[in-house]
Every structure is written in C-alpha cells, then in structure tokens.
C-alpha cells in the first residue's frame, strides 16, 4: 500500500503557480543560494523562503515533525560548525579570537576547550541561514505539489516519459519505504533486535544492519511485481505517454520563471564580480581587537 505525503489543496502563493514553474524557480533559487556565503546576501534568500513558508497555508501541526527533524539537524550541524569551524577553512585563512573558554576539569588528560573566533561565529550563522533557506524551500515541495501531477510536471520540464514516470514513482515510494522501514524495525525489535546497541567491530556492525536493510529492500522488490503488471496491462512505454491532466502556463507562471532566471543571472554576475563571499562584520572584528 502506498503512503502519501501530506498534500492537500490550499489557497497559497506556492500552490497558485504551475508546478513546473515552481520547480524551475526552485532550481534557480537553489543554485543562487549556493553562490553566496555573505550573511547580508543570504538574508534575502532566507526572507524569501520564510515568505513562501508563511504563505504556504501549511499548518504547523502538519509540518511539525519534518520541521523539527530538519530544524534540529541543521541547528545541530550549525552548532557543531560553531564549535569546530568545520568547512570554514575553505573560506577563511585567519581567525580573530573573541574568547577562549577552558574547562576547569580534565577528562583522561584532555581539557575541554572552546575557541570562539569572529570567523567561526559568522561562518556558523551564515551556514545556518544558507542551509535553513534551502531546507525550507525543499520541505515545502511534497506538501504543496499534488502527487497526481508529479509525472506530468517532470515530463513538462523536458524529461523523457520513462524518466519522468520514474521520478514520479520515486517521490511516491519515499514515504512508503519510510513506513516499511519503521514497520520492519518494530518487527525486528519484537524479536529482540536492538539497533541502539549496535556494537562490536566494523564488520559485526555492518552485519547487524542487515536485518533492517535486507527485508525492506527485498519486500520492495517483491512488491513491485504488482506495479509492473499494472503498468504492463496499461501498455506502459509502448507509445508516447499521454497524461490525464494537462498543465498550462498562465502569465503569473511566466513571471515566476522570469523572476527565477533573473535571480540566478544576477547571482552569477555578483559571484563573478566577487560579491557575496564570506563576510565578517567590522564590529565583530573590532571586538576581537583587529
């Protein structure tokens, strides 16, 4: 049985556009965001993402689980970035120390310490803004894109029929396999399997993952026969595919596509000029005595 994303028709900005126009805009937005590390530029993208989120008509109750997971994940990694400066080494060579904290105790000879620098702090904030903007825009897609339109949308974007249909099925299968995984895990737990206690050597740990990975995979393959039969009975792939619903661009869709392309072109131009690179406010550097 297929499980679906929590889509429902809503009166919102995102759903007022043709899904193809939205996907094109999303692609341009994504590529544009990746061109910047400057918080001032990223704030624009964050604002755009928040406008889309708050006008999406999606209730907190519906999106809570996904937002808490992804939000928690992003916060965790941003905090880790703040602690360690991971990834920042590629953007800045010098660090201006704001404060160095040292614990008053030792753990097995190791003294926990934290070096807070202006660069590390700004890098983690910029990263938070960057990843959160992308995540918000991404997470909205399954909630606002009608599953009945997945295939025709990808076909309308120029993908061949078969690839468009494969993309359609992929999006439909993701929540289903997520459910299957949790059912399998419950079933294995009932048999005494404890994922939380995975231990031992590398090979032993890998082997212990098999009771989760193998049943879900094999069940998916075995279950696919019904889908294959149903598609074959409808002569899938014999000739050019027709779709039940026809998508037609409206003027507002052209406007959105134009806006997306303009955003990308401006972002590329800024990037070529060297604008929007990693930025640390002068005030923060002054605090560090620079």
């Amino acid at each position, binding site marked *: 049985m297929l499980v679906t994303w929590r889509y429902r028709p809503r009166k919102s900005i995102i759903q007022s556009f043709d899904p193809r126009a939205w996907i094109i805009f999303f692609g341009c937005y994504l590529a544009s965001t990746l061109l910047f590390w400057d918080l001032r530029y990223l704030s624009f993208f964050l604002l755009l993402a928040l406008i889309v989120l708050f006008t999406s008509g999606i209730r907190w109750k519906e999106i809570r689980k996904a937002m808490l997971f992804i939000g928690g994940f992003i916060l965790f990694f941003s905090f880790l970035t703040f602690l360690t400066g991971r990834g920042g080494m590629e953007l800045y060579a010098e660090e201006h120390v704001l404060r160095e904290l040292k614990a008053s105790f030792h753990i097995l000879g190791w003294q926990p310490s934290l070096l807070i620098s202006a660069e590390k702090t700004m890098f983690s904030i910029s990263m938070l803004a960057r990843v959160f903007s992308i995540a918000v825009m991404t997470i909205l897609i399954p909630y606002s894109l009608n599953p009945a339109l997945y295939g025709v949308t990808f076909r309308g974007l120029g993908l061949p029929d078969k690839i468009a249909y494969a993309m359609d*099925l992929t999006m439909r299968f993701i929540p289903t396999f997520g459910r299957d995984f949790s059912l399998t895990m419950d079933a294995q737990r009932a048999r005494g399997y404890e994922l939380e206690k995975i231990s031992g050597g590398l090979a032993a740990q890998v082997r212990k993952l098999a009771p989760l*990975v193998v049943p879900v995979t*094999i069940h998916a393959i075995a279950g696919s026969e019904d889908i294959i039969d149903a598609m074959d009975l409808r002569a899938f792939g014999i000739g050019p595919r027709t779709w039940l619903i026809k998508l037609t661009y409206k003027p507002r869709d052209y406007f959105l596509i134009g806006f997306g392309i303009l955003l990308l072109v401006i972002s590329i131009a800024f990037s070529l000029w060297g604008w929007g690179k990693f930025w640390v406010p002068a005030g923060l550097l002054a605090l560090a005595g620079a």
Partner: protein
Amino acid sequence: MTKKLLSVILTLVAVLAFFLGIWLIGRLINPSLNLDQTALLRFVFVGIGLLIVFIVYLATRESKIWDVGTREVVYMAIGAALYAVFSYLFNGTVFVVPSVSQVSLRPAIAIPMFFGYAFGPAVGFFTGAVGNMFGDALTGFGLSPQWSVGNGLVGMIAGMAILFKDKKRSLNTVFIISALVAAIGTVIFLLNKTIPNMLFYDVDNNIFGDQQISWFAGLSAIIGLVLVVLVRFLFRDNIHVAAAVTWSMLGNFLGIGFAAISDIWINGFSPAVAIVGEFLPSAGPNMIFAAILVPILVAAYAAVQRQTGR
C-alpha cells in the same frame, strides 16, 4: 547518427559552452576571478560526469543493457527511493551509526551497488544519482550535484557486469583495475600520512577535518580489496555474488574517485588531500558494505527470483 543522439550531444555541448562562456566573461569582469569560489564548478563537474556516462553509453549502445522497459522504470524508482530513505535514516541523525577508527558507516551505498548489478547500468545510475539527490534533500544537506553523479557512477559501473557473457573472465580484469586504484590510493596515503581525514570529526580535540588520517582509514581501500578477495574465495561457486562484489568495488572506486577528485577544483583541495582526506575514508569503508551487504542482497534476491519465477 539518430536524432535522439544528436540532441543529447548538442545539449551536453550547450551546457559546457554555457559554463565556458561564464568563465570567459567572468575573467573580463573580474581578472582575479577564482571559479572555485563561485560554486559554478559543481555544475561543470555534473556536465563532465554526464559526459562520461554518455561516452560509456555510446561505446556500448548496441547492447541491450541500456534498454529501459516497465520493469527498469519501477526498479529505478524503488532503488532511488530506498537509497534516499536509507541515506536519510543512517547518514542523518535518526540512527547515529558509530564510527570505528575514523571510519563512519554508510550502509545505504549497498543499494546503488546492488540495483546496478541486479538490474543494469541505467537503473544503477538513476538509483545512485537521484537517490543521493533526494537523500540530501531529506536530510537538509543542500546540494552537492557532483557527488550525486559520483554515486550514480557507482551504480552504473556495478551494472556493467551484465555486458560480459563470461562473467568469470571479466572479473579478473575488473579486479586488476580495482587493485591498481586501491594500490595508487594507498601509496599516496603512505607518502602523505599527515594529511587530515576530511570526513571525520575528532570529538576529543573538538576539530573537524584536522585530525591526521588513521592507519585504518588510510588502508581501508586495501582492507576492502582483501575483503572482496575473501568473499570471492568463500563464494567461489556462486559467480553472481563474486561478480556483484567485484563490479561494485570498481564502481565504488571510480564513482567516489570522480566526486573526490572533482573537489580538487571545486574546493581547491590539493590532489593528495582529495585522495587521502576524502577518497580513501569514503571509498574504503564503502567496500565493507560491498563485501557484506551486497552478497546478502544478491542471495536474497536470487531466492525471490526462484520463488516468483521472474
């Protein structure tokens, strides 16, 4: 040349011309322009990766391995969805699979390897590339398209096994190429033992990517190779398991190698950092999954085939 082929070539040429144009125009605007700071190179490497796939396709297009029917469409979707879900669960924070001696575990990589081997290179490529893309989207990792293409190559190369009627003979060639890649990687590690493991977070020292690569992580490609030899020895009567594991090994080395080497230009890494700091700690441990999970999946799938008769 068919119309379809011509349109693919023209599209690829147009994409490369677009980025070349940006590079040339960009240098006029900003003489000190470093393309690695613009994120555009990620997309250039997507183009290069797709070009590699296209060249392989051109060279083998007479073969039926590239035919995509109903069955392949469904397996593409299943593979990509499974890869995305497992990536989300195991690479994210849902289940933090512990790391051993700087080696973190990515069990999901067994999916493109298995799907590629069992259902062909087209299914393998789609599973790796699209699955990685959806997995990154689900976990909020953002976009690393060159790594998606690298994962696609893992699945595609694993699927090239179907090209050879005599699987046993092809295995030796594949094994020698893989052994060479592993040997080169290991020699580079031995010459650059002080390079940090870019994929490991050292909790004790509170540093990410600054701890010197461990011996275990540095030698993981060779350890993986030994594991594959062991699997081939243990399953010497089961050619499918031996072929799946050996081709997956080559796919893993070349696919992950492509993504890691692209970081020389994208992230400005030196070749030694890309190979020792990125390629070895990711491609090496992947071999452990190729050697353990892929044979289990191949055996389980063979049982399903026997049961259903398909």
